[in-house]
Each structure stands twice: as C-alpha cells, then as structure tokens.
C-alpha cells in the first residue's frame, strides 16, 4: 500500500487534506511538527510527502539530498503553502522540492495530481 505523509503547521489543513485524499486508498500518516516530519521521513519509506513546512528545505540542511542518499527511493515532495514570493519558490525548487502548490487547493485537481504521481512511481 502506498504511504502518504502529511505535515502542516495547521491541524485543520492536515485534517482537510487527509479527508480529500482518503478516497485514494493510500495509507495517510500525519506528522504533528516539522521535526516529526523529518524523523518520519528518515525512519520510514513514503511515496509522497505533502507539507506546508518550508524551513526544513530552505535551512541548508539538505533534507532532499539526505533522503536521496538512502537505499530506499525518496518520496516525491509537494510543498503547499500560501507563499507567493518568487525568490522563495525558486529556493524551494533549487533545494529539490518536486512541486509547489498554492492554497486554496481544488480537491479534484489535488486528487488527480496525487493519483497520477502515485501511479507513476515504481
């Protein structure tokens, strides 16, 4: 079964996204904080990470690089935020984030995107 990790500063954001993604049949795990998210990612193998935390990718910690160096394939990383600053978005992409989505999300569009992503993974 595919595993999706959700990590958002707002519990309502995580709850609403888990309600939307609940129909996919994937196992959804919610991390309560940025630190918990990093620990989960290092400890387990996930297919997809949906997160609202930007700092772990921009703090110079090379999180994506560390994930890539493991034997397990790294999860696809979608950052979802209200942020619209172009420089920050470029920094996110440079740090290895696969896609940036901005709130508010359209549930059918999100479902389609996540389903496509999960089906494209080996």
């Amino acid at each position, binding site marked *: 079964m595919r595993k999706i990790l959700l990590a958002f500063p*707002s519990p*309502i954001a995580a709850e609403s996204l888990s309600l*939307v993604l609940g129909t996919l049949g994937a196992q959804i795990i919610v991390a309560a904080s940025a630190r918990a998210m990093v620990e989960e990612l290092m400890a387990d193998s996930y297919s997809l990470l949906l997160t609202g935390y930007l700092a772990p990718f921009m703090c110079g910690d090379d999180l994506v690089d560390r994930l890539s160096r493991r034997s397990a394939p790294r999860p696809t990383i979608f950052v979802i935020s*209200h942020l619209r600053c172009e420089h920050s978005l470029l920094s996110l992409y440079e740090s290895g984030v696969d896609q940036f989505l901005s709130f508010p*999300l*359209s*549930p059918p569009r999100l479902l389609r995107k996540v389903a496509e992503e999960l089906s494209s993974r080996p």
Partner: protein
Amino acid sequence: MNALSIFLPLCLLLLLAEGVLLLWLALRVGRGDDTDSLRQTTARLYRYATDGGLPPPPRTARARQQMAESLFSLTRHLSLLSPTERERLGRRCSLTYHLVRRAERGGAFATADALQLLSVLPLSDDYAERIARLSPAEPLAQLYRLLILVCHSPDRVAEILSGSSLPAYLVPHLVARLEECRVEIPCRSLFATRQSLPLLVALRVVARYELADYEEEVFGALTLPSGEVRFAALTALAKLGATVDRRIVEATSAMTLDERRGVMRLFLREGYSARALHLFDEAEAAVGSPLANYAARRLSLRKRNLIKI
C-alpha cells in the same frame, strides 16, 4: 482549645483547595482536546461540502467559535465551499450574527478575531453596513474590515479604500488576501484617487505582477507628498526595470541618507548596473554626500566577495 482553633480553619482551607482543584479538573475533562474537536468540526464541514447535509447548529459559544475557525481555515486551504454554501452555513448556524455582534462589542483582540473569521462569510447588505460603521483601532481589525467590505462590494474598491486608513506594512497582506478572494483590483481607478491607501494597493499590484502598462501612473505617484507612496512607487519602478531618470532622482532628494541608500539598494537588487544609476551618483556628488559612487563601490565589493567564495 488553641490547637483546635488553628486546626479547624486549616482543614477548611484544605477542603476548599481540594474543591477548587476538583472543579478545575472536571472543567478540563469536560472541555476535551481543542485540536480534536476542531478536527471533528472540520470533518462535519467537509461532509457538508461533499454531501450537502448541514451540520447541526452549535449549542455553545465555544462550539460556534470552533465552527467559525474551522470554516475559516477550511476555506483558506480548499476551494470546497461555494460562497452560497458558506452564506447558508453562516445564517443557519448563526455564525454571522454572533461574529458581527462580537466584532461590534468585543475588545480590540476580539474584534480583530471576529472580523478575521467573518472575512470568509459572504454578508447581507445589513451586516455589511454594520461592519462599515466600525472603526477599529487595531491594525489587523482594520485590515479584515477592509477585506470584508471590498469582498462585499468589489465594484466599490476605490471608494472603500479612499475612505480608510491602514498602516503601509499591512498593504501586502491586504493585496494577498484580495488575491485569495479573487477580487479584481482596478489599478487605474485606484491611481486616479490620488489617495494614499488606494495608491499603495495599486503600486503593490503593479510591482507584484510587473504591469509595465502603468509606468506613467507610477511616475505620477513620485510627485505625491507621502513618503510611503513615493517609496512604494520607487519599488514598483525598480521591479518594472524603468530607466532611472531625473524624476526618480528628484523623488529621493527629500529623503534621509539611509532612505536614499535603501532606494539605491532596491535598484541594485533588481539588477541595475552602476552605469544605469549614474544620475544618483551625480546628485549625491553635487551635495557632497558619502553615497557618491555608492552603486559602483557596492557592485565591486560584491564581485570581490564572489571571487573569494
């Protein structure tokens, strides 16, 4: 006798403390975890959006507050509930009524909070009039009041903004929230008002989307007396990549040394060369300012630092 007179009040005091502790525990257990109940409310609102079944009206003020908070957060995260559905929910669950009352009667923080939660609920004309009559002192409350009024009558943006004051540092937040609410901002009519707040909003939009069509209007804003408007206009011109001419240099003449340095940094950050900024150098050299040749010095310093790296 003496021992009894000391022992008896001590026992009574202990009993009283125990009673208070038990009452506090009972209230805490009854309240449960806030995050859990917020999650449950969110799930109910999600079911309302997907199945159409209205959630039961909240019975307590606390439950009402939680529903309003969930609705606010859900609306900001998912394009799920249409304005009609939100309006129906606000009316049937008395959210609008109570939030408007709280905005009118609460203190500074309560008013700001109520207005923030109201900003995702479409209002009737009566309620909008009541919100328009408010004049909160709290900057965030002013921001949400403006947002509510603009979302209620998007065709009157210029009029609403002209009659309001909002600290300049909150203008980017206002523009971002207006974007989220998909309100079309008529930049030309905002420029035409020549008022500080509409101009700051229009300049922010022009800078953000690099709308080169409004370059002349932005140059026009340089002649206004407000320092905040002039600085916003300079920011917009730097973003637009406008040629630095006399009008720009003259707009900085009344600024302090630090402000002029800030303006030059603004242009340098947008990729202007020292040659493109030579008019600044000439103006600074003419008054014997230490900022003469600032652009050239700063660029060569940056090059040296890059070579070291």
